[in-house]
């Protein structure tokens, strides 16, 4: 500032200094608040990753480094839509081997819901609570994984049919075409959510007399879980295994979906 100006307006220097100090404090206060909010809402102590995602299951792990005993809630999103949530308490021995935790139960496993044929993306988030549960934030674990679903019907590998589905039971049968004596692993999905898995070991129709199978034990009966009143849809899939890895296992829908009503 020119000397004569400063002589005429000496106190303007004080005002400029005051404004500069205030602006600095404003930046510090706002910056500090932003940092405090970030650390309180997003918990930098969460570590995790998505290990695998495919048409059958989605697996990974998550650990809260600030509290290793804490089991973290994880949420599965498929193609941007919420699918399922559960606690990450599935065994994951790799964490102990790597020295991350002493307890291996920090993994998670979701059974992939039935999806249309084509490419899909799986994301898993850790749900973090702050402010005494008033706020929940989702932290993405690792990177999303894209996978392909080949959602073919049971033919040509299986013969089968979904006979009935109601509020009490879901019944049907399935036979492997190339090995008719073997039981088939079948999975029940209701409203797109995995419910239960079992093998076909119930006596079904007289398969042997009609030459469909070597024995009668190719039926399945699921007991329908408790559902809210309303309309629901049941789908049953046969698991086709080739070499045992997920890439060569596929879900093949038996028959057609059945809608039923729960009163």
């Amino acid at each position, binding site marked *: *500032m*020119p000397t004569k100006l400063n002589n*005429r307006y000496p106190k*303007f220097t004080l005002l400029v200094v*005051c*404004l500069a100090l*205030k*602006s600095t404090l*404003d930046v510090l206060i*706002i910056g500090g608040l932003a940092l405090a909010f970030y650390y309180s809402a997003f918990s930098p102590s969460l570590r995790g990753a998505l290990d695998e995602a495919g048409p059958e299951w989605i697996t990974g792990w998550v650990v809260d480094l600030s509290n290793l005993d804490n089991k973290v809630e994880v949420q599965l999103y498929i193609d941007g839509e919420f699918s399922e949530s559960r606690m990450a308490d599935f065994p994951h021995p790799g964490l102990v081997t790597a020295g991350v935790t002493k307890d291996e139960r920090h993994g998670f496993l979701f059974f992939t819901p039935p999806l249309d044929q084509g490419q899909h993306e799986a994301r898993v988030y850790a749900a973090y609570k702050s402010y005494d549960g008033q706020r929940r934030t989702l932290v993405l674990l690792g990177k999303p994984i894209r996978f392909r679903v080949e959602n073919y019907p049971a033919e040509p590998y299986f013969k089968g049919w979904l006979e009935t589905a109601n509020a009490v039971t879901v019944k049907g049968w399935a036979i492997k075409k190339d090995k008719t004596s073997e039981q088939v692993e079948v999975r029940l999905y209701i409203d797109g959510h995995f419910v239960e898995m079992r093998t076909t070991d119930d006596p079904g129709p007289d398969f042997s007399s009609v030459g469909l199978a070597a024995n009668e034990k190719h039926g399945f009966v699921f007991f329908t879980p408790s559902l809210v009143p309303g309309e629901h849809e049941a789908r049953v899939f046969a698991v086709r295994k080739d070499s045992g890895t997920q890439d060569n296992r596929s879900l093949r829908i038996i028959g057609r979906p059945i809608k039923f009503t729960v009163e």
Partner: protein
Amino acid sequence: MITNDSIKNSVEDWVIAFEASGANRIIAGWEIASVTVSFLAAEWMILPFGTFAKMLGALPLLLGLITMIVSHRVRIESLRDIGLRFDNFGPAMRKLALPMTLSVLVVLMLGWSTGGFQSKKIQIWQWILWLPLWGFVQQYALQGFINRRTQILFGRGVLSSITVACLFALLHLPNPWLAVATFAGGFIWAQVYQDIPNLFALALSHGFMTLALVFALPSPILKGLRVGLRFFS
């Protein structure tokens, strides 16, 4: 007698005056921005976050107040200059009468058309007494400080009044109807203040107009007069 030295001194004085004017405007703009940032920080970042945050929210407001007081002292602005006076209270109220009457009619018509007149808050006398006090605080900051500084930037007139109105509306976002009302009110009050600076008259007017809004308009429109982040809660 005109000499070379006298010409040189008058040119130098002119340059100083010109620089003073430019520097003065820059400082005035900085003051406006600084105080506005304080209010925005309080309503968007601090106050929405609960009881402890209210104490923390006092900090930017306190810094803003200190800035305003230092500025008043530096610019040798007396309480009378700012508008803390009673000699022009009557003329200020008379000048406000017509715009207030028209504004109240508009608000009442809006209230009838939107199914208003259902607020229970007007039965709380403590809240009604608080309105002119809170109006005084707002008018001091808006007219006693921001308006005076925008006049340094743009001179007296419509441009500076619109600037005051825009800043007032900005501080009442994201509440859309409140932003509209405060823009209109801010412009009228700024114009009146520039003619007849009296904060007490403006405070009463502010309180009365707030009462009219709450009385006439339904709560889905006013959203409880919430601004900043609290508007979304």
